[in-house]
């Protein structure tokens, strides 16, 4: 639920080295900013690029993005927090997106989720303590003909069963 606001009083953790490096700035200036009539329009591509580089979006990175886009950091945070796929806290090396669409539900996606919860020892939305796996649910992944399915980072697996799930997890170990 993108519209539920969470009260955040925690101080921002900072580091000296910027997240938005000069090199990334140059790349974004050349390849992204030139395509838009406003700097703000580059918000999502800039956030995607930062997330790709660092795995998630720390608050400091969002501040740096805002300065680069010449908007207030509240505005960039507003956009970043609206979309579910911007990670505002660290995620695991592998993110497992289990499809929870109706066709996957009819084909038993809950069994998969339960098996993953047991095997990884985490709930949906959590990351394993070793930082390896994050378990989340996704809206329709577009494989309704061969469900249940899940994305393991960028690799889509279909016709999943508890057995072949084990094999996939082991191959990522």
């Amino acid at each position, binding site marked *: 639920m993108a519209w539920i606001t969470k009260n955040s009083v925690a101080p921002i953790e900072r580091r000296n080295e910027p997240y938005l490096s000069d090199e990334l700035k140059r790349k974004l200036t050349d390849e992204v900013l030139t395509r838009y009539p406003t700097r703000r329009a580059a918000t999502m591509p800039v956030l995607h690029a930062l997330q790709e580089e660092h795995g998630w979006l720390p608050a400091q990175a969002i501040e740096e993005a805002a300065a680069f886009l010449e908007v207030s950091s509240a505005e960039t945070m507003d956009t970043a927090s609206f979309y579910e796929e911007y990670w505002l806290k660290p995620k695991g090396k592998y993110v497992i997106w289990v499809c929870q669409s109706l066709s996957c539900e009819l084909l038993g996606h809950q069994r998969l989720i339960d098996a993953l919860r047991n095997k990884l020892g985490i709930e949906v939305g959590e990351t394993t303590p070793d930082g390896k796996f994050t378990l989340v649910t996704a*809206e329709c992944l577009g*494989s309704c003909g061969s469900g249940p399915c899940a994305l393991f980072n960028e690799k889509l697996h279909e016709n999943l069963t508890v057995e072949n799930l084990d094999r996939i997890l082991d191959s990522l170990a």
Partner: protein
Amino acid sequence: MTPEELGKLAAKEQKARSACKHRVNVCCAAGCASMNSDKIKDDLQSAIKEKGIADQVQVRSVGCMGLCAAGPLVSIESEGKSVMYKGVTDGDVSEVVESLEGKPIERLNLPTDMPFFARQEKIVLENCGVIDPERIEDYIAVGGYAALIKALTEMTPAGVVGEITRSGLRGRGGAGYPTGLKWGTVAKSPAREGRKYIVCNADEGDPGAFMDRSVLESDPHRVLEGMAIAAYAVGATHGFLYVRAEYPLAIKRLKRAISQAQKIGVLGANILSTTFSFNLEIRLGAGAFVCGEETALIASIEGNRGQPRPRPPYPAEFGLWGCPTLINNVETFANIAPIVDRGFRWFASIGTDKSKGTKVFALAGKIENTGLVEVPMGIKLRDIIEDIGGGIPDGGKFKAVQTGGPSGGCIPKQYMDMPIDYESVKEAGSIMGSGGMIVMDESSSMVDVAKYFMEFCKSESCGKCVPCRVGTAQMYDLLEKIHKGEGASDDLAMLESLCELVSQTSLCGLGQTAPNPVLSTLRYFRHEYLELLRDGQKELAAAGADKGKDGAV
């Protein structure tokens, strides 16, 4: 590149194709790829090399062949004959290579005359499963970019708009707005600071619909060509393809397709050595379903929260940064090149009076042949479910089909002989939507289905307007209460009145249509709700004995 050079390239590719004795196509779309079809393709290639017949056999990875349930699929074309193999594994590779010069393998054979293939009529999907989506040369060899040449060299922009208008094409994203009318509005609207935009809405998110993903993965150039023709017709110079981040393979193929198209000069500055220029960018979504709504999509591209705004003004007049903006769905753009190429009369001859052409449907749920099918508009629901889809598996009985995702409804079996077109589906209480069809048998609970979609709408509501933000949450709570057997007839009455309130007062399509799954299941399967109510027995009895369990109203 000039049009002549493009023609030469096409001829060269065709010659190379026909020089091969056998063409082996391995499906490498997401469905088959997840069953390691890439490796099967590599193994086939090395086995053929080993056998010393590499000069006679061309092995290609191609896009989706449709019958995802039977993957990995391999099709072999040899001198006019073609066979198709299903469920091919690593172990079958040497046998497949041997069979090239002998008899087809009975065990793997998938008869191409089965109704699933024979009853389809392909326009949008005609290249899917036939060409390698990662090679622009393959697309050009089957006539790709010829329509763009025709538009740029033989037609005026107004002529292109007229062609699309007369073809009767309607938007395939769900609402069915006449495409030509929309193009005409954008063409007539004065550019703002010299700018107009084209946007392809590939933020496919309806649960149960996956045709856009498949088209983008299997024939990306078709969409690019459609967008370029649209840009020429309405006078735009820039375009955006807004794709869901959940479709990594589609994104990869699109990026490759765009760079290939720029390289040979069918995208970018001075396309095909004319004065027309068109630049195209990919924009990634980030997991917000509401961004499929056009004004929310615009807000998202502009760098804001993906929240809709009231219409009018429509994006056709006031879209991206206030400029006239044409927004069409992937499947709509995929129809453009064939219409320009073959003419509006050909397209208008397919389908019904008010719904022209074909529609791609995604069959899923309790049906034998799951996958993508393309059929002429006006086909009977029964033909899709029983003939093409192969009926319900495990001896089950058809109960209803859910169409249109969270904005649609459930169509029960008394509508089996209804023609599928925009108007008839609406009359039956659902919508055509983007084309998802989730089939349910007698074991599925309709209250569950309604609850599922309400949960979806609740979590995807952007929160801007109160009716949708609060209404979907309240309706979900009521459905949950009824589902648990704790509801009473007051709750059902409250649910019905909320449905009306939310549909009439929400800001955008998401909220306006969110009650549809509840309303349509109440219309046809009210007894399933009554059976769950604490005090529902009285109304059930009052409804009479003829109110059977078959969903008769």
